């Protein structure tokens, strides 16, 4: 992940360039590769900056406004920098019935931030999100793009936080 405030010119990494080239033939036009391309760059840079959007517009041969419309529509396409660990707590009904409010309160206390904020050291961002399709094992949270933690308790939260380097 790029951490400098002045990133080098935005471009797919070699691996992501290969992935991008492989996905183009799956669609009848280049614009359809918009969300997959943004996912690749999000993985690479951590957030969808204006420069990332300009790069996608250029590669997909669409106006920047189209990329901005898409990036601002989908919740996973962070347009702001987030912490090294983005902790996303499900707030929707099934998890709430199993105690997600206590889980969130405990996280806010342990991390010293409110939902929607990032710790000063940039290690954690805490968010609430809507139903993660894991209602049978709630309360549930997601860390970054791909890690589910299920059947949460306060003790389990402590263990998870202690384990993150």
């Amino acid at each position: 992940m790029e951490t400098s405030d002045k990133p080098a010119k935005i471009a797919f990494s070699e691996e992501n360039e290969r992935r991008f080239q492989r996905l183009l033939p799956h669609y009848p036009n280049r614009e359809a590769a918009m969300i997959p391309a943004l996912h690749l760059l999000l993985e690479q840079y951590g957030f969808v900056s204006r420069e990332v959007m300009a790069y996608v517009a250029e590669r997909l041969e669409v106006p920047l406004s189209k990329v901005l419309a898409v990036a601002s529509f989908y919740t996973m396409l962070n347009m702001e920098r987030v912490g090294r660990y983005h902790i996303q707590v499900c707030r929707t009904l099934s998890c709430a019935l199993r105690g997600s409010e206590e889980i969130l309160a405990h996280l806010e206390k342990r991390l010293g931030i409110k939902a929607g904020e990032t710790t000063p050291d940039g290690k954690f961002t805490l968010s609430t999100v809507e139903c993660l399709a894991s209602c049978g094992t709630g309360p549930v949270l997601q860390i970054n793009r791909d890690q589910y933690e299920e059947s949460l308790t306060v003790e389990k939260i402590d263990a998870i936080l202690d384990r993150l380097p």
Partner: protein
Amino acid sequence: MEGYRILKHNWTIPSAWDIDVYRKQCTFGYETARKVVTTMEPSAVRETVKQAGLRGRGGAGFPAGVKWGFVPKNASKPTYLINNADEGEPGTFKDRYIMERDPHQMIEGMIIAGFALQAPQAYIYIRGELGLAARRVQNAIDQAYAAGFLGKGIFGTGYSLEMTVHRGAGAYVCGEETGLISSIEGKKGNPRLKPPFPAVVGAFGAPSIVNNTETLTSIPYILEHGVEAYRTFGTEKSPGTKLFTVSGHVEKPGVYELPLGFPLKKLLYDVCGGIRGGHKLKAVIPGGSSAPVLTADEAERANLDYESLMEVGSMLGSGGVIVMDDTTDMVWALKNLTHFYAHESCGQCTPCREGTRWLDDIVTRFYENRATEEDFDRLLDICDSMSGTTICALSDAAVFPVKSFITKFRDEFEKHTVHGTGG
């Protein structure tokens, strides 16, 4: 308790997501798809699924075979098959399990559906958050290509099928089939007016059939064992089995496969071990958060099929069963849901964009004991102006919980008004 294994059969087999295990130890094992593609006519496959009465498992319950029949004959563009795996209806977590535990049966169902539609390209639209599911499905697709079950001339026939995973990026409205199509095209997930229906003008202007993941995963059984065998499960109008995902206040939440028409009471008390900690049942949302809530009495006499749940004023929806016991504050529960719909409205239609916010504001007023008697009428007025006035069903989906909660649990809301005694 669970003798019904059309959809979940392979879930207990270790590594069923690996093609070798799937071919050697699991049901179907791509032999059903081979039989269909090498020996049947596409029209016969379509007719079989129609006769089986398989209804869409995503929420609407529309017969899949009938939907397939809407693709115009001699269309100038090829048909796309789209698997709607954008599972996001609160209380629903079945498609995620299918993809994580048994992706090959889903792919086999898609091969059969693709062949029936003579579609050259299939997309699987997987909800962006579901990383493990997406990896398992992509790996399964790669394995199926290597085995000659996908790609050019599958099973040595003249039929070719390409299959692509397309991941969403966080938007509930993309589970609506036309919103999903907008999203596949690389746009905001704004739903589109119907007609034209996607079967006529869908993705990239071509005929497109959007089926739910569970619907497609049900198909191999129908083609392997036939219409009669499938119809031994379920009811006359709601044939087959369905996955029910139970969450909230039961002892054993989880994913259960049951024949349609199964009594909801038996699901709660026998299958799920009853209400947690000896508490009493208060309310059940039987079909994902968009389905009207049932009181305990209504829930205990309802059966889990499309018609029975309509009779008690709710709907089967996605089969997401959310259970609330007697400790639940219904005003708090409704506020949770109104927040969800306000967050997820795509903002395209005024009644939904404005209405979902107003519903959330007023229900929050109840929660904070600031509401007045007039707020009941105000909520119902807003609900009326939101019903049937928008492009997609999200607006109606936001209305159902509000209307049913404030009608059936009015006394609890009364206590939250400024004149109320409680709160």
